[in-house]
């Protein structure tokens, strides 16, 4: 799927063509096309939403809001101004950041632990999943835009330029977001670093 998952260039091209076709058919009033497009976008969108927001319920709201906007504004998409993937991601990240601003400030780390990992039996999880869960908890202290930049960079594998397009900022600013995000995570992950020695 071109919109959310890094894949081979050929695979990305095919997925982008499929998305453009489904979008076109949606605009033309084919309800099955929009449903099919939503099926392509929903899972990776929810995953990105969870990474950015640290909460599944908030992420679900953000994805639903983004799909509503996609439905309403589908005909405003201009392929000459950029890819559908970037356009959709921008819509999604905006919905996530707006929702977060409306609802609550950034959660404290101890609070985030209870949100992100309700079961204390992290030792029983696979090492990678455990590591990911710890990082997810730690990112709760970051400003939402830093989390979004980190998620788009590490999870979606986007370049600085692509992230800049989504966050509507410059590459330099994205670099700053990533640097500040990493710096803020270091003390949060101090124990983890010792664990990895």
């Amino acid at each position, binding site marked *: 799927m071109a919109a959310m998952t890094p894949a081979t260039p050929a695979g990305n091209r095919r997925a982008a063509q499929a998305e453009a076709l489904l979008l076109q058919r949606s*605009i033309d009033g084919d309800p099955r096309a929009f*449903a099919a497009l939503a099926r392509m976008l929903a899972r990776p969108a929810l995953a990105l939403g969870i990474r950015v927001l640290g909460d599944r319920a908030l992420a679900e709201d953000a994805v639903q809001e983004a799909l509503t906007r996609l439905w309403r*504004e589908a005909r405003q998409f201009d392929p000459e101004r950029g890819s559908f993937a970037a356009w959709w991601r921008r819509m999604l990240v905006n919905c996530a950041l707006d929702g977060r601003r409306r609802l609550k400030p950034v959660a404290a780390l101890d609070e985030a632990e209870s949100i992100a990992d309700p079961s204390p039996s992290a030792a029983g999880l696979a090492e990678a999943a455990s590591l990911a869960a710890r990082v997810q908890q730690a990112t709760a202290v970051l400003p939402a835009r830093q989390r979004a930049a980190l998620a788009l960079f590490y999870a979606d594998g986007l370049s600085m330029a692509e992230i800049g397009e989504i966050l509507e900022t410059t590459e330099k600013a994205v670099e700053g977001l990533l640097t500040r995000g*990493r710096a803020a995570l270091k003390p949060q992950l101090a124990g983890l670093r010792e664990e990895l020695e």
Partner: protein
Amino acid sequence: MMADRKLETALSAWGRADPLQGAGDEAALLRILQHADTLALSGPPLPGSVLSGSATAASSSHHPRRWLGSLSALAAALVILALAAPLIQKTMAPVFNDEVPTVLADADLDDGLVFALLYTPTNDEEYQL
């Protein structure tokens, strides 16, 4: 730096892991898809498309049909206003009619009469009268 490499490792693991492994994640996905189905069944978003043809992004407010609709609505409002004007004048007329006497301004009245004209009797007083 060693610490930076470990941080990168941790962040990469975070990026690779699928965050949709919780108990309610599939249910959340299902709700999202139901929402999308509801949207899709509500009818087409807007007529026309920018993807076909020249792919120029004409915004919905610039669509000729919209302009035509707005002009028609404006014309209809003007016609209604023109038809209703005499009726409105008739309704308003008594309020601005100069021929209605303004008793206190023109009359040379003493204080007692002015009080009598301005005073509103209570119900009991009215009954007694």
